[in-house]
């Protein structure tokens, strides 16, 4: 159901359909009609001009659907809405173009369904064909031209800048180049106004793009700039680069959605595209409300203003869920092309895969593992491939980082979606049920996660002045593994049976977990942690551990060291603000002083 490659002849993908011969009545017998309806699978009579992935409007309510198979003179359509009441004999209207979405600056701050139809203003309940009535937001945007009339421009070049919280640009569309014959003056313009004419073609702020076609770029760049997520467990141990890919597998109750929401709120990207794909309605309501209330620490605006929310909850039509991840990727690429760093969050890709499975099963495709279609792996791979750090057509750099949640059934990591996804991503943040059960959040497992970006990013951190970054990460990882190993032993023989250094190692594991890695999403001071604060906390804990080891090495009994009250260090992540390091150093010094007294 996914395609790659170039969009058809022009940017809207429009092709010409043969005209209906004059004199044909509107309900003429030769117009395409519905033959069969089985839930979202609809068979229609198919004129020879209909192409794969063309959009088709079905029945009197004009329900959107997409052509997924053509066999002889019939076509199979996947409907994106509830098809109740649709009957053989009803009309089908092929649109002669693939499923496309309207891209415009006003997507920022908006909430949309899986086909990018605005959800604001369509009523309390969603009925089939309903969201089409939601009108796009056509407020005026301040425009400043950056080219002169008569200048030659190529695809992707900047025509002008748009005043918004996020720096937006008007670009020459991907398939266009030539002379700027006209450009609008500085001032406010609605998004459907023509702002420039290039090579005789109108250029507007809003444009249409087929969702299954990745937008073209000049070339891919290596992903080597860190994305600071503000979550210590991630930034410290399993960092991700801008333009990279992450999967977040976790059983229910492991805090997957909470972690993704934290990243949506606090990571240092320019634009967030949040795709709630087959997830909870109350949770979507919550995230929408919170984003509208929270302040963006970098711009001072509302967090909602840098966010595009695509809400396709689990009870909304399943097939629109299938489209929603592609819709999200298209929106992300649209902002990337303006030279922005975009994070695309998809929660949850498993629900998307289930939609693929559901439809494949209705199509009678031969199933592979657990009923999923044989093409599952390639479709997952194609989705994650839409992530990249790029040189845009216009020469700017931009990126799309993809973070996909995975919901393994029964927590079984060998199931197809999890197993395939792990192969395609550069980072894996595996959420652990035992950690979550112990209320250790975020429950990112240090033994089951990985980051293939870590070595590249170590170099980036070193270049940025933090030469210790790789060493710090290595020490923390080793210490956590060692503490886990000892914890198993302690359960068998009791702590007192361990030699002093090992006893301190157990203490060290606890300190790292509680003082540095755990993070309280509900605390204003701790919800977000700047790179400086993260480094300070880890340094403080490591210094204290070193001191404890020195003490036992010098003959002080482990009991005495364990008895020292380390509370100030444990509380430092809450007492220091998101960007503060001084309270962390103070806590470290207090604890070091207490240790000196114990000696």
């Amino acid at each position, binding site marked *: 159901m996914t395609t790659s490659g170039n969009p058809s002849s022009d940017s809207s993908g429009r092709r010409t359909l043969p005209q209906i011969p004059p004199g044909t009545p509107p309900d003429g017998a030769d117009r395409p009609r519905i*033959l*069969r*309806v*089985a*839930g979202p699978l609809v*068979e229609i009579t198919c004129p020879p001009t209909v192409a794969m992935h063309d959009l088709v409007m079905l029945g009197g309510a004009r329900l959107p659907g997409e052509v997924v198979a053509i066999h002889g003179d019939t076509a199979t359509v996947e409907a994106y809405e*509830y*098809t*109740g*009441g*649709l*009957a*053989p*004999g009803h009309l089908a209207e092929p649109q002669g173009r693939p499923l496309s979405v309207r891209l415009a600056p006003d997507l920022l701050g908006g*909430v949309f369904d899986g086909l990018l139809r605005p*959800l*604001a203003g369509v*009523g*309390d*309940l*969603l009925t089939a064909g309903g969201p089409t009535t939601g009108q796009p937001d056509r407020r005026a945007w301040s425009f400043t031209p950056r080219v002169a009339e008569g200048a030659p421009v190529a695809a992707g070049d900047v025509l002008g800048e748009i005043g918004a919280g996020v720096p937006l640009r008007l670009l020459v569309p991907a398939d266009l180049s030539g002379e700027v014959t006209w450009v609008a003056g500085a001032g406010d313009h609605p998004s459907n106004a023509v702002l420039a004419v290039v090579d005789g073609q109108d250029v507007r702020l809003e444009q249409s793009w087929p969702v299954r076609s990745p937008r073209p770029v000049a070339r891919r760049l290596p992903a080597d700039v860190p994305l600071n997520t503000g979550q210590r467990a991630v930034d410290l141990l399993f960092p991700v680069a801008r333009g990279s890919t992450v999967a977040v597998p976790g*059983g*229910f*109750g492991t805090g997957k959605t909470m972690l993704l929401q934290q990243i949506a709120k606090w990571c240092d990207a320019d634009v967030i595209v949040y795709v709630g794909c*087959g997830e*909870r*309605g*109350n*949770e*979507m*309501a*919550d995230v*929408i*409300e919170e984003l509208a209330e929270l302040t963006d620490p970098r711009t001072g605006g509302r967090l909602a203003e840098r966010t595009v929310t695509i*809400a396709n*909850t*689990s*009870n*909304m039509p*399943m097939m629109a869920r299938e489209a929603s991840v592609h819709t999200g990727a298209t929106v992300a690429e649209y902002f990337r092309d303006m030279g922005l760093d975009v994070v695309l969050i998809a929660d949850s890709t498993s*629900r998307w895969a*289930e939609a693929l*499975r*559901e439809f494949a*099963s209705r199509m009678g495709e031969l*199933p592979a593992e*657990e*009923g999923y279609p044989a093409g599952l792996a390639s479709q997952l791979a194609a989705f994650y491939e839409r992530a990249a750090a790029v040189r845009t057509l216009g020469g700017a750099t931009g990126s799309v980082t993809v973070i996909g949640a995975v*919901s393994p*059934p*029964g*927590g*079984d990591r060998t199931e197809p979606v999890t197993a395939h996804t792990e192969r395609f991503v550069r980072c894996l943040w595996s959420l652990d049920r035992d950690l979550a*059960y*112990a*209320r250790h959040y975020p429950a990112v497992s240090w033994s089951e996660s990985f980051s293939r970006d870590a070595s590249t990013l170590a170099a980036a951190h070193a270049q940025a002045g933090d030469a210790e970054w790789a060493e710090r990460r290595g020490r923390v990882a080793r210490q956590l593994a060692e503490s886990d190993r000892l914890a198993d032993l302690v*359960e*068998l023989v*009791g702590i007192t049976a361990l030699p002093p250094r090992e006893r301190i190692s157990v203490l060290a594991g606890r300190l790292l977990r509680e003082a540095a890695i755990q993070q309280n999403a*509900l605390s204003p001071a701790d919800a977000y942690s700047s790179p400086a604060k993260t480094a300070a906390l880890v340094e403080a804990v490591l210094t204290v551990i070193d001191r404890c080891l020195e003490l036992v090495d010098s003959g002080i009994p482990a009991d005495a060291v364990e008895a020292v009250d380390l509370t100030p260090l444990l509380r430092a992540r809450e007492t220091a603000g998101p960007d503060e390091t001084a309270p962390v150093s103070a806590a470290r010094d207090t604890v070091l002083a207490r240790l000196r007294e114990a000696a």
Partner: protein
Amino acid sequence: MTGAVGIEYTRVRDLRGPLLFVEGVSGVGWDEFATIVLDSGERRHGLVLEVDRDIAVVQVLEDTAGMSRTGTRVAFSGTPLRIPVGAGWLGRVCNGRGEPADGGPPVLGGSYAEVGGAPINPVRREPPNEAVLTGVAAVDVLTTLVRGQKLPLFSAAGLPHLELAVQIAAQATCGGDPFAVVFAGMGLTHADTAFVRHGLAARSAARELVLFLNTADDPVIERLLTPRLALTVAEHLAFGEGRHVLVVMTDMTAYAEALREVSAARGEIPARRAYPGYLYSDLASLYERCGRIRGRPGSVTILPVLTMPAGDITHPVPDLTGYITEGQIVLSGEVQAGGTYPPVDPLASLSRLMRKGTGAGRTRADHPAVAAQLIAALARSRQVRELADLIGRSALSPTDLRHLDLEDAFRHRFLAQRADEDRSLDDSLGRAWEVLLTLPRSQLGMLPADLLDAHALPQDQEAR
């Protein structure tokens, strides 16, 4: 269910499991409701699963037993199944298809609603933030049920989940606001049915209850309809009439089995444990009907009850339910074996919306801190108990021993409750304090000092 003069189609081609294939139809839409009349005059009902050219595939709710190719007539209603909705349902007891089982006349309503419901627009949802009080201490204090939430009860064979579900249905209230309970029983034994009717009779007579009961010997396919009827009635009572409605649905495992049976009859490709691949979406189409809507006074709160086959929480039904719902209340065989009712496992249970639904102005100012401290203390108690099992009680520190005392106090003073005991929140929180104060003050770090001062007993042995 409407009274149009419809054409009846009589050319039945195939009968297979619960499916009936009728040919020669025209203008029949997908998901339409059908009425089937047998030669004997018996009426049955069905839904259109597929319509291909002039053949309609109808899923017969009451099964196809006794149907033949001749003498079977099928009429289509022109719309998906719709039922009357309104306050007329209150006080009524019906079978799993919504037909009276209480000797009363058919339920009539001022308006009709489609049983499939329509998804609530995510931007129109109001995040839930007020409690439903159940009078059960373990629920009210530790896993508070919030208006608009979906919170399942995970249980296993032999545990008193039905007792607890009935107790909650009988006792639940929303302060002084208009309230109602809709109870959907699926695959219940006759003894269970009698128990439910008896336990909820008072609420029924007070016209605060709607009861739908599909028994174990009722048609299996009918179970697919029962929760949808319940939710449709509940939605109207909530969003049309401004009531807070609690919907109890038991047993969802029986529901999922019915779904599997239909899927198998249709020859669909099975996913995990032969359940259909769309089990998640199907369950979501029920559970997601809970919520609140901006600017409307009522709410729909859903309490699904499910038995985990062989106590396995990774079984698809509890697993997928857990992915959709906002927490879970888990019953434990171990607590049950200890003779405590309700046998709630406090550490495995969780209400994700509790944070917003408790505290000052919601329940009581000290509630969130008390709940968090009690859970933390119980987690420590469990560790200590495991340790004691390994190395013996004598090796435990005094603080560890106090944690064992706390666990005992928790079971006997807080958790244990009679099945007909409606405990006030103040009483429940008072008991929680009593349990917590078995620990020395130094172990109660999550409780603010002023709260501790206000609740600590004079003889609190801080000196030790």
